[in-house]
């Protein structure tokens, strides 16, 4: 009986406060409500990878300034970084 009573208390309690212990109040609308902590970490890692690609390509171009392939690769790396940042901003806002 004690076990059954405990289960009822836990079950009803979880419905009231939520499984993660929050008190049920709505989170503030800070424009990042859609983003999970894991997604934030992935976003940070993506940005680091994009920055590293730009930096290494720029360094290679500095060593070989006449290389048209590297010029285009740097252009592409910068564009991809800009597009990703713009996309991530749009994805993580509420609207």
């Amino acid at each position: 009986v004690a076990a059954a009573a405990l289960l009822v208390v836990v079950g009803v309690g979880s419905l009231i406060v939520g499984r993660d212990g929050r008190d049920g109040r709505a989170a503030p609308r800070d424009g990042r409500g859609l983003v999970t902590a894991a997604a934030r970490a992935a976003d940070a890692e993506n940005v680091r990878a994009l920055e590293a690609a730009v930096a290494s390509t720029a360094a290679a171009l500095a060593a070989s300034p006449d290389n048209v392939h590297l010029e285009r690769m740097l252009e592409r790396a910068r564009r991809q970084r800009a597009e990703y940042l713009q996309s991530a901003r749009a994805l993580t806002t509420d609207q």
Partner: protein
Amino acid sequence: VRRALGRAAALVVATAAAAGAQRPFTRAQPLDATAAVRVFSMAGSITVVGWAYDSIHVTGTVGAGLTPRAGGTRTAFKLTTYEGEQDAQRPSHLEIRLPRRAQLWIKVGAADVAVRGVAGSVEVYTIDGRIVVAGAPTELTAETMRGTVQVTGAPGWVRARSGTGAVRFDGTAADLALSTVSGPIACAGDFQRGRLESVRGDILLTSALARAAAVDVDSHAGAVTLRLRGRPDVALTVYTVSGPITNALTAERARPSRGTGRELALAMGRASARVSVRTFSGPVTLQPEGTEASASAVVR
């Protein structure tokens, strides 16, 4: 007896919680053939099917405590189950049937999105959710931060992007751009203009290369594999700073490039299509189709 009572109580609680977790939702109204439809949700799944009727019909379940809002005019319809709160514990699962030529826009957090049979424009944005689109929308934009994107069919214009997830395309398109940061890209089909690019993800392109097609493939550190079908007419250039180049298409071999890196240029047939491949450190492999494993082995 006590143990039996305990089990019974646990069953009652579990059943009550499950019943309260979701509740049914239905909404229907007339809608013009090219109406704009906007969907906003947090978690669960959204399935959209284009049909031949001038109406929209939404069925499914919404998470307990959520207040779905749906409605609009004949030219614009909005549906939302999201209330500004990050709560993946209360998923909503919805199936939407709408006019085939509707203009569809979906934005979700962790929900999976599937769209099929929609011939208007389609835009899908997710954080974690998987995006699957089948059919021939005039324009398709699919963006996700961590989810995967899978597109099959004959969309006219495609922009598919993921951060860490895989992007896969099977079909034909006039204009195609696939992009990832670290997720792999697998593209099988034909298109007039294509751009495949990644920072660290592997890229596999399998194509016969349409006449006069123009394709650019770039990966900073990922491997690039170009697998050609049939006897393509293509002028192909490869450049890499430090990655190896393997050519199984012709007898040409890579040679040092001016300044730094290595490059390979070759022409096949009448060279009407143009393909450019560039990597910084990723290996490049050129081969005829049928010599390696299928695309599914690269994009799991």
